[in-house]
Every structure is written in C-alpha cells, then in structure tokens.
C-alpha cells in the first residue's frame, strides 16, 4: 500500500479515516433501524480487519452486491430511497461501503467529503447544545483527517490535531458572520422533508380515558413562557388547548362547525411570550381568555387560539390574556343543544343520579355543587386507573372511583349534560414550573390536563375543574405532589432533592437561552440586529453587501495579524534579494538551496566579467548576514558597483 506515488495512500492514515467515519455516522445509530446499524458496524469491522491484515480489499462485484442488498433493505424499511430517514440511511451505508474500497488518497478525500456532508444531516434530528458540541468536535476530527491524508508518513498525530484545531478555530469568526448576516428564510433553517415531523408528543385532537395519563408520563417540555411582570397564581394558569364537545360514549372530539365568539375582558390583559415546541397541531395554548393574538393566528369558536399552520418547529408567539372574562353570555341555541347531547341509553346510572339531583334542586349551580361534593368524597386521584367497561362514566362513578383528570372532566360533563346543563371538556395544560435561573415558566407534557366548562344563564361559559375537588394539590402544587407515593412518574418530574432540581433548572435555562438566542435567531431577530446597525430596511442585496463586507473585514484583520507577527526580513537579506534581481536580469537564477559561495563560483564560471563584482557582493553579504557585526554599508557599496 505504501508506494511512493504522489496519489498513494499512507497505510497509517487509514485509521484516521475509520475514526472520522465512525464519528460522523455514530449518532445516526440512535434513530435508524437496528439492522442497518448492525450492518454498518459489521462493515466497519470488516474494513478494519482488511487494514489490519493489509489484505486485498473485496472485489467490485461483491461491493455492488452489498450496496444493492442494503438499498433494498432501506427501501423495504421506508418504502422510498429519498426523504430524510431513507436518505440519511443511504448516506450511512455509503460511508461504510466506501471504507471497503480505500485504495488511493482520492478515496480518502471522498470519505472526508462524505463525512462533512453527514455532519450536516445530524441537524435534521437535533439542534441541541450537545449535538452542536459533538459536531464541532467531529468537524475537527474530519479536518485533521484531511490534513493527515496529505501529510507525510512521518507526520505526528499531535501536530495534525493541532493544525486541524487551528483551522477550525480560524473558521469560527467566519461562521459567526455567516450566521448573523446570511439571508434568513422564514421557518426552519432549511425545508425539511415531509417525514421530519413524525412522532412528536403533545395533546391530540380527541380524548379517551387514559390518553392524557399517558402524556403525563413524559417530562418533555411542551412550551416555555416569559411573562411581562409577575407570573399569575398557579390556580389561574389554565393553558387552553382543543375544546371537546362531541361525545360518542367513549371518545371526546371537537365539533367542526363555526361558532361566534363574544368575549368581554374584565381584568386588564397580561402580556406574555410563549416558545412553543413543535407539536404538529395548530393550537397555541393561550391562557384563558386570549385577548391579543399574534399575526397569522385566529381565535376558534371555542376560544382556542389557532395558528394558520401547524407548529412543526419551535416557534415564538406574543400573546395577551385577561384572566377574568365573560365568554359568550349569549350563546346560540344550536351550540347549547350540542353541548347537552348524550348518546341515548348510555350511562343509565349517571342519568339516574343527575335526575335525582335535579329533583332536589333545579338550580344548575346547586347541581354543580352536588357533583363536586361527590368527587370530593370517595374518589381517588391516580395515573393508573383500572380499565373501564362500555358505560365508562357509570363504571367510573359507581365502581372504580379511581382516575386521572380526564376521567373527572368526562364524568363531570356527562353528569351535567344528563342534568340538562350545557357542558364540555377542555384540554390543555395546567400550571407549570418557574425556572429560578432565567425566570421562564416551563410547562411540560406532564402538566397536560383536562377540565370542564359549563354554560350558565347570565354568566356564559364558566370553567369548572373537578380534579381540584378530588385532589386540590394537583392544581396548587403540581402533579408530583398530587399522586400517591409509588406511582410511576418520570424521574425528572419526581425530583425532590434541591440541588438536583437546581441543576435541572440551570440546564434547562441554558437550553432555553440556546433555543431563544441561537436556534431562534430568525428573520425578525436579524431585522432587529440590522436595524441596530443602522440598516432598518435591509433587502437581500444590502445583506449580501454586508456579508461581503464582514468577511472582507475578517480577512483583513487576519491578514494584518499575520503580517504583524511575521518576522521582518533581515535588511541584509533584502539587499541580497536586490543583488539576485541583478543576477536574474543576466539570466542567472539562484536555487533556494544554493549557498551564496556556490553561486559566486558558478557566476564566475559563466560570466567572468560580472563574476568578480558579484564575488564582492557575496563576500559583503555573507559578512553582513552571518558575521558577528552587521556591516550593511559594504554590501550596499558592493551592490552599487555591480555593472
């Protein structure tokens, strides 16, 4: 392998390629199919074995066969060879295959180029700080590999790595300028393929018993909120999601018809900014009741704030809400009718109970009191409710009596409807936790909640939270305190140790800052930055000009720095170069390794008339440059006397 040809690959450079390839590919193992990760690992090991034994690499037909096999597997897995997941899997496969045909330096360069490209693909999956750090480190390794490929066999790893690091560090200012000034597109950094948003957790459009309980197991962050002013009390933090008013006996769904919204704000609006994680739905999760909405969003008939497009990436919205309000005091008869509907014949025991209550007192508020009092007596709050039968509400109310918020909300609404009171289920989030490090309110999936809304004559839709009757601590201090000891909850939510909690707050605050400042640097932020630079209405041409200016300025600074630190040429050497220019005019050139005395001898032989004068120059130059005292005057005189 180690021949002296200029394009030959140094045998000892190959491990660098393995490391670089592994570093670029490895994070993809997490989300690609296991069989592909196993095959990739085996191919790596196989290639390493060939290198170790220094044996002939496998033939072309075998490689083509493996590629065909792998591509078929990927096609069967994804039903396509394009798109995010299939495309990345193909690249990973190619990278592993390329290691099996490394014969020349050119093949090594292909691996490096593919490695740089694979670095980019990681951002399809994650843009977090650890990913960024990992990819920076990998870029360093890949760059060092490129240097190693072109270094001699004697080059030391230490110097190669140091040189690679130097290059990467020099690239950072350019990276920052490009980051700040490159024209931004609205939306994510690049248009992701369709399958990029699969598998996000969050509220769904329908509710069956157990759906929110499973959501509550997740400690993932749903959104973060920054309030202008103080954070309102926890019992007021009801983040409104979809409102469900269609009930078929087991599942709750939203109704599709348009409804008018008549909202009277009573208290002054409070302003806040939410940073919503991607959840692939349109709702924005505003506090009840939203009075100020961001552009490109509307208020649905059930007072749910809706974005025009589904939120498929982390987005920021500015919202305003009045916490005291009156909502649809005048309601359409059709709406009221819909919210009193109960499937015929279902849950007969609840119907009986509601009728009993009504017979005692026909006042709706008294019925509500009765229902809440019932929940407060014999019910038990748990994330692991027993299974319910066909008449789920009857089963829950009279048999199991153990449930999570959606059980209470659903049972309460069914009871109200049986009693002839318009009622519906509202899903969303309740509460949240203030991060003391950056002051943001963090709302997690585990804060997902369901409550009820009833329509009362003269008061409109009023929020009633039956869960508060069962387990007041759920509303006042959060889910971790509401559940009995021993219930499974993600470790992160359960944390009660102070320092661990502090650590988590700090880490989440760092992540939030990263999301807000770095990932969230969008068109609007860029405009603000440009405005502060004195370019309030920059178009893309101005932006390109600014970009060129920034990069030019950086280059100028780097060049100036390099020139400043460059050793100034010795004056004797400058004079010597002048003499050499004399010589060059006489068609005599000095090789870099030729000593001045050798040159003088050669000149004396080739041009005897000039040689004598030139010998004087050489003597003066050697004395000035290599002698103990730098006498430049003699050298100047000698050069002046050159014919």
């Amino acid at each position, binding site marked *: 392998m180690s021949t002296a040809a200029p394009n030959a690959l140094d045998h000892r450079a190959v491990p660098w390629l393995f490391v670089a390839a592994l570093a670029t590919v490895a994070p993809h193992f997490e989300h690609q199919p296991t069989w592909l990760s196993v095959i990739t690992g085996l191919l790596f090991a196989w290639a390493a074995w060939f290198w170790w034994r220094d044996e002939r690499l496998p033939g072309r037909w075998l490689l083509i066969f493996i590629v065909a096999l792998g591509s078929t597997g990927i096609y069967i897995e994804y039903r396509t060879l394009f798109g995010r997941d299939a495309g990345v899997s193909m690249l990973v496969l190619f990278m592993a295959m390329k290691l099996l045909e490394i014969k020349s330096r050119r093949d090594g360069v292909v691996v490096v180029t593919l490695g740089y490209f694979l670095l980019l693909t990681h951002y399809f999956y994650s843009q977090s700080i650890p990913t960024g750090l990992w990819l920076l480190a990998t870029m360093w390794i890949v760059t060092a590999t490129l240097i190693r490929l072109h270094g001699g*066999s004697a*080059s030391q790893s230490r110097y190669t790595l140091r040189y690679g690091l130097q290059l990467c560090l020099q690239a950072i200012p350019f990276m920052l300028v490009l980051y700040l000034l490159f024209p931004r597109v609205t939306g994510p950094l690049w248009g992701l393929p369709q399958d990029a948003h699969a598998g996000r957790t969050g509220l769904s459009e329908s509710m069956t018993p157990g759906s929110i309980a499973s959501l509550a197991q997740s400690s993932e962050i749903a959104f973060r909120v920054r309030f202008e002013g103080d954070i309102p009390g926890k019992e007021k933090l009801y983040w409104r999601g979809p409102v469900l008013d269609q009930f078929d006996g087991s599942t709750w769904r939203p109704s599709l018809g348009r409804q008018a919204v008549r909202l009277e704000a009573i208290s002054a609006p409070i302003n806040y900014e939410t940073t919503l994680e991607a959840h692939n739905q349109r709702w924005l999760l505003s506090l009840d009741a939203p009075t100020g909405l961001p552009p490109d969003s509307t208020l649905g008939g059930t007072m749910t704030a809706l974005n025009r497009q589904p939120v498929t990436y982390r987005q920021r919205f500015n919202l305003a809400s009045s916490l005291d309000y009156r909502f649809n005091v005048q309601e359409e008869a059709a709406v009221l009718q819909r919210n009193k509907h109960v499937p015929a014949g279902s849950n007969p025991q609840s119907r009986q109970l509601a009728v009993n209550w009504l017979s005692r007192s026909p006042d709706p508020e008294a019925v509500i009191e009765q229902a809440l009092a019932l929940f407060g007596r014999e019910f038990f709050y748990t994330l692991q409710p027993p299974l319910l039968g066909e008449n789920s509400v009857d089963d829950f109310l009279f048999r199991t009596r153990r449930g999570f918020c959606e059980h209470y909300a659903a049972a309460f609404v069914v009871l109200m409807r049986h009693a002839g009171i318009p009622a519906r289920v509202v899903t969303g989030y309740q509460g949240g936790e203030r991060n003391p490090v950056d002051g943001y309110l963090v709302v997690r999936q585990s804060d997902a909640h369901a409550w009820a809304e009833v329509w009362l004559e003269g008061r409109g839709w009023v929020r009633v939270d039956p869960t508060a009757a069962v387990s007041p601590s759920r509303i006042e201090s959060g889910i971790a305190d509401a559940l009995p000891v021993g219930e499974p909850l993600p470790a992160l939510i359960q944390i009660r140790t102070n320092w661990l909690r502090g650590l988590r707050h700090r880490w989440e605050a760092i992540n939030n800052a990263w999301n807000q400042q770095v990932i969230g640097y969008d068109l609007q932020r860029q405009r603000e930055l440009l405005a502060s630079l004195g370019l309030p209405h920059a178009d893309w041409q101005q932006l390109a000009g600014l970009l060129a200016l920034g990069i030019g300025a950086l280059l100028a600074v780097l060049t100036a720095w390099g020139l400043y630190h460059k050793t100034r040429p010795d004056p004797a050497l400058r004079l010597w170069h002048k003499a050499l220019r004399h010589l060059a005019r006489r068609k005599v050139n000095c090789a870099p*390794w030729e*000593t*001045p*005395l050798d040159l003088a001898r050669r000149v004396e032989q080739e041009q005897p008339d000039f040689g004598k004068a030139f*010998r004087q120059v050489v003597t003066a130059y050697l004395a000035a440059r*290599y002698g*103990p005292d730098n006498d430049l005057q003699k050298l100047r005189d000698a050069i002046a006397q050159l014919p």
Partner: protein
Amino acid sequence: MFGNALSARPRPFDAVLARAGEIILGKPDEIRQAIACLLAGGHLLIEDLPGMGKTTLAHTLARLLGLQFSRIQFTSDLLPADISGVSIFDREKSEFRFLPGPVFAQLVLADEINRATPKTQSALLEAMEEGQVTVEGQSRELPEPFFVIATQNPAHQIGTFPLPESQLDRFLMRIELGYPDRAAERALLSGGSQRLQAARLDAPFPAADLPSLQREVAAIHAAPPLIDYVQALVEATRQSPAFQHGLSPRAGLALLAAARAWAWLAGRDMVLPDDVQAVLPAVARHRLRSVQGSGFASREDIASLLRSVAIP
C-alpha cells in the same frame, strides 16, 4: 578554498593539512574532516575495507599534532580490562598499583571496533563519552585532549558485533576513505612506505595547544540565520519520508560544532551555510537510517535532503 576577504584569521592548520596530504594521497577532504572532527572535540569513525589507509591516517594525525598515540586491536576475546588497565599487587610496597591500559593516550586508534563484544565496546565508548575511566570503583581522568579514531570493516560481517545506533551517535563524524584516484595511486606505488614517512614527521604543534584551539573553535560565531539553517535541516530529516527517524538534538549540536571547526579551518570567524553543507554527510549519515534498504543514509539521500531545505 574560499574568498580571501572572509578569511580574517590566520590558518595555522594549512601546513598540517598540506603535510598530511603528502602522506595520505588524494584525500584532502577526508583529512580535513578528520582534523575538523578533532578540533570540534569529537571522535571519529572510519569505515572502509582493509588497506585503505585508515591506520596511516590515524598515525599521521598523531604525529602531526604531537599527540601521544596508542593502538588497540579489537578482537572477540578482548576484555574491558585490556583497554582500561588493571591493578597489580606490588610486593615490595605491599599495595596495589594501577597499570594504565592503552586507552590512556591522547589519540587512541581502536582498530576494527566491531570485532569486540558489546561489553568491551561499551568500555571504550564510556571513556569517549565521559573523558574518564572507572576501574575498580575509582575514576581516573583520561589525558587532554582525548581523541578516538575507531575503524570498522563494512564487509565480512560474520562474527562481528555491529555498533548499535546509540553507540554510533557518540561518534561526531563517520567518514569513508574509498579507493584513491589514478594519479594518487600512481604516486603511492612509486613512493616509499607511507607508514615510515609518517613516523618521520615532526609535529608543527605542541599537543598542549590543542585544548585552547578547541576553545577557539567553539567560540566561532554562528549567526541566527545560520542556526535557522541547522534547525531547518534537522527538522527536514524528521519530516522526510526517506528516513526512518530524524536527527536527535545531540546530532544538531554535533552538526553545528563540526561546521564551526570547518569554518575555523578555512580561517573564518563565522560559520557559513557552506560549512554546514560540507560536514553534513559525515555528521548525519551514520545517524540516519534510510527507509529503502536497511543501511545508513546514502550520499544521495543527504544530497536530496540539502536540496529540500532553502537557505535562510
């Protein structure tokens, strides 16, 4: 040899070189290298076939410089004590008396050093490095100056113990004499015995002056650009794919010392790149191993090394 304007010093060794040139015919460069090696305070390794004049060269140098001379013929049964000397019991005085070995001389010719066992070799090499000999726990100073010329025969390696790299590094220079050219050979054949002529030489220098000359040589000016050049050459050997590994820092010091002596012989009070180039083959070749083949670096390797480094 060089321009007169640069030769500020008297050149007291021109006479020595000329006289030696009358004995060792046709080898002026090798004689100059041997003397430069001596002036730089280093030891010399001569590698050549038998009969090339290795011993005569050593004799001639000893005579011309007025050095006290001794010769050790290395054989496989030579013991360290045969070199350094032994203590014997003096019956009259009832005490041990040290009989110094042949190493206690100013110029020691170690003939065919690779015939002796490593143990014996290392006894000599320790003396070369330390300037003293330890016998029976007592250190004894060697005379000043102390100069070793070792010879070895590159052919017929059966039954020899080649010097390892670490030992080779102790020789400042390694030279090869090679066959004389036609004219020199003719003069050699028509003249009398070289060895006899050498024996008749008188010393133009008292040996006692040599240490002060060596100090003078060590003080020759080496300007920063010249140091740059030495450094660049040493670095180039470390990065060149032609060599298995590069020159050590000690080799860099040796190169500079040898170049100083070369400049002094030319009567200059400063070192020029020419001096470095002139001594580089003798200083570097036995310290470098060529990647191709298993031997020392070849003359071509050194020539291409020189061509790969620009003169600062």
